[in-house]
């Protein structure tokens, strides 16, 4: 352990006074071991009502068919695929945090990976529900799988990106679930060993008999690393394949080779925005300020600027290439996007995704909790509009001007969408109640190397250069949860 010396100049990943290993456990398990507070109940009731709306709207769709949606013969794909791509994109941040940041040894991921992975799983559930409900006859979903059947067997067409997508999404969901649950085992064991009676029995079953022996941990670390290694290309492949659902078609506005990287960047962008939306609330309500610090928030905001700018470059490249291609249909598709009847959707997308995240270049904005939260919602809205713009504006004016139409969502479309947000939050709130929202074992790893108290101890022992120590103490000013003793320290 002591071999992991960290520079004093690095921001602390755990703040607060007298944080011991048992305090980490106590703090993180407060929501799991106690009755929920009022904020949780209000959130849960509202979300559960949303989930109820989802059940109702999806049942309505199943009973009366897709004709109940606002689709028409020109626009055959609209809110359903918009919602699907939006949710899958949101899911990507969880894998990015848990896998890519693990490979890059970004230790700040340790306190946010658990909830981000949970978010991934719930977002993919919402996305998958869109796939099932847009099928029209959802009980025939098995036709998308290569199963023997009475038609000969007539197999699925493996040349189709929609079939690739079935494999990509189901692999992504199941591998993410395995990754998440394996990581949860040590923490479930912690809950088990502190619980009594029925709770202990339930968590004992869930813990798979984890005991924390040397060999278990050694293999655990290797398993996590390899899962991260395979999940990284997986997550890139998933959104690449989602983009190929569009890019391999011949529809102007979809038929572009820029789609895979552009979609992946957009996915990370929207995913981090959703992580921000959830965690800013969670850390406040659950009192996790010592573990999810301003440094975490700022780091995520930096990723949001980066990916937002990539998305911005992609939008401009699309416009340029449409013009440069010299193809009149391609040129019209983009002209129609920017200035046609859906100009407002295009400009909402541009404003929310490209312009407003640039505010994060200002340090005051990126370290303000309220502004970070508002901008994260803005990004979520913008990314929904991005998918809407790509899908609906490319379809609504096809090659035959007599069939040009507008798309108007029906109440069922709106119900399924709002409802899916309800499902997502219901699952997330239940997760916060029954499982630790922060990976305790991983935060404990940081305690001796990267916590504020460890660094202060080094300063007190005069084990570090005084100039560096001063820099460190000054840099603490920006943390919102810093102890009042900082001032005293500076006097010493």
């Amino acid at each position, binding site marked *: 352990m002591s071999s992991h010396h960290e520079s004093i100049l690095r921001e602390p990943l755990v703040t607060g006074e007298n944080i011991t290993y048992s305090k980490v456990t106590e703090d993180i398990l407060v929501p799991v071991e106690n009755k929920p507070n009022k904020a949780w109940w209000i959130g849960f009731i509202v979300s559960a009502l949303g989930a109820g709306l989802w059940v109702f709207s999806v049942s309505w769709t199943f009973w009366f068919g897709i004709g109940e949606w606002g689709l028409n013969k020109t626009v055959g794909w609209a809110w359903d695929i918009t919602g699907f791509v939006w949710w899958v994109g949101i899911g990507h941040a969880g894998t990015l945090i848990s896998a890519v940041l693990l490979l890059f040894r970004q230790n700040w991921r340790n306190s946010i990976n658990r909830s981000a992975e949970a978010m991934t799983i719930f977002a993919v559930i919402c996305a998958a529900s869109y796939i099932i409900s847009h099928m029209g006859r959802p009980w025939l979903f098995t036709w998308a799988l290569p199963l023997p059947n009475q038609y000969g067997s007539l*197999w699925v067409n493996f040349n189709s990106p929609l079939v690739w997508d079935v494999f990509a999404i189901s692999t992504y969901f199941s591998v993410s679930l395995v990754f998440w649950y394996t990581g949860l085992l040590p923490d479930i064991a912690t809950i088990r060993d502190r619980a009594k009676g029925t709770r202990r029995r339930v968590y004992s079953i869930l813990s798979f008999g984890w005991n*924390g022996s040397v060999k278990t941990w050694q293999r655990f*670390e290797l398993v996590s690393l390899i899962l991260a290694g395979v999940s990284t290309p997986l997550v890139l492949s998933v959104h690449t394949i989602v983009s190929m659902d569009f890019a391999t078609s011949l529809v102007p506005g979809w038929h572009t080779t820029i789609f895979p990287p552009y979609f992946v960047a957009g996915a990370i962008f929207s995913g981090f925005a959703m992580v921000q939306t959830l965690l800013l609330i969670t850390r406040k309500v659950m009192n996790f300020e010592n573990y999810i610090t301003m440094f975490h928030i700022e780091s995520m905001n930096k990723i949001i600027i980066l990916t937002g700018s990539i998305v911005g470059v992609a939008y401009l490249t699309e416009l340029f290439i449409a013009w440069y291609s010299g193809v009149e249909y391609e040129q019209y598709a983009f002209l129609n996007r920017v200035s046609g009847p859906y100009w407002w959707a295009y400009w909402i997308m541009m404003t929310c995704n490209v312009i407003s995240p640039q505010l994060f270049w200002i340090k005051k904005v990126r370290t303000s909790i309220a502004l970070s939260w508002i901008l994260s919602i803005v990004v979520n809205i913008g990314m929904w509009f991005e998918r809407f713009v790509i899908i609906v504006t490319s379809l609504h004016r096809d090659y035959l001007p007599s069939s040009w139409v507008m798309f108007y969502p029906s109440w069922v479309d709106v119900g399924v969408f709002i409802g899916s947000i309800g499902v997502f939050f219901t699952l997330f709130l239940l997760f916060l109640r029954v499982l630790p929202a922060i990976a305790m074992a991983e935060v404990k790893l940081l305690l001796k190397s990267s916590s504020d108290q460890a660094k202060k101890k080094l300063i007190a022992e005069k084990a570090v250069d005084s100039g560096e120590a001063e820099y460190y103490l000054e840099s603490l000013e920006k943390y919102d949860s810093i102890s009042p003793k900082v001032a005293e320290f500076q006097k010493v």
Partner: protein
Amino acid sequence: MSNIKYILGHFEDPDDLMHGIDKLQENSVSIYDVYTPMPIHGIEDKLGIKRSRLGKVAFCFGLTGTITAISMITYMLVIDWPMNIGGKPHFAFPDFIPIMFELTVLFSAFGMVGTYFFVNHLAPGRAPRVMDLRATNDRFVIAIDAKTNTSHDQIDNILKEAGAVEVKHNERKYVSYE
């Protein structure tokens, strides 16, 4: 005295724990196992534990997935029911790559995690083989088999000198979860 099965040395700090392991090994006391609430880096070398072979397992499962995918797709689209899709070749290899990749990842992840659960006896509902309840919370525990290491007083002293906050003499091996 003779009923004691295991001696547990509780440490509050991983560095003390490592020191304790060194001290025990200097006095040729064999260590049964170490239970910790988080992974301790470098402990495997001290205890002489071999590198895990799970990486190779993951590779083999991954390869199985690749082969499964290519043979499944080739059988279905080329051998069993070749279809003329715009006059394109039946064996359209580039189109097979996405699913070959997905199945490689799927097989390697599930195969490796399944193997991990199997070799470490992790399964839903399995009774936890836990020696002390605090080893999953805030204590770093060295377990010493008291039957093979008979000089119990000496072990107690070594552990305490190394910084153990508590030394327990357990008459049963595992904590009862009943």
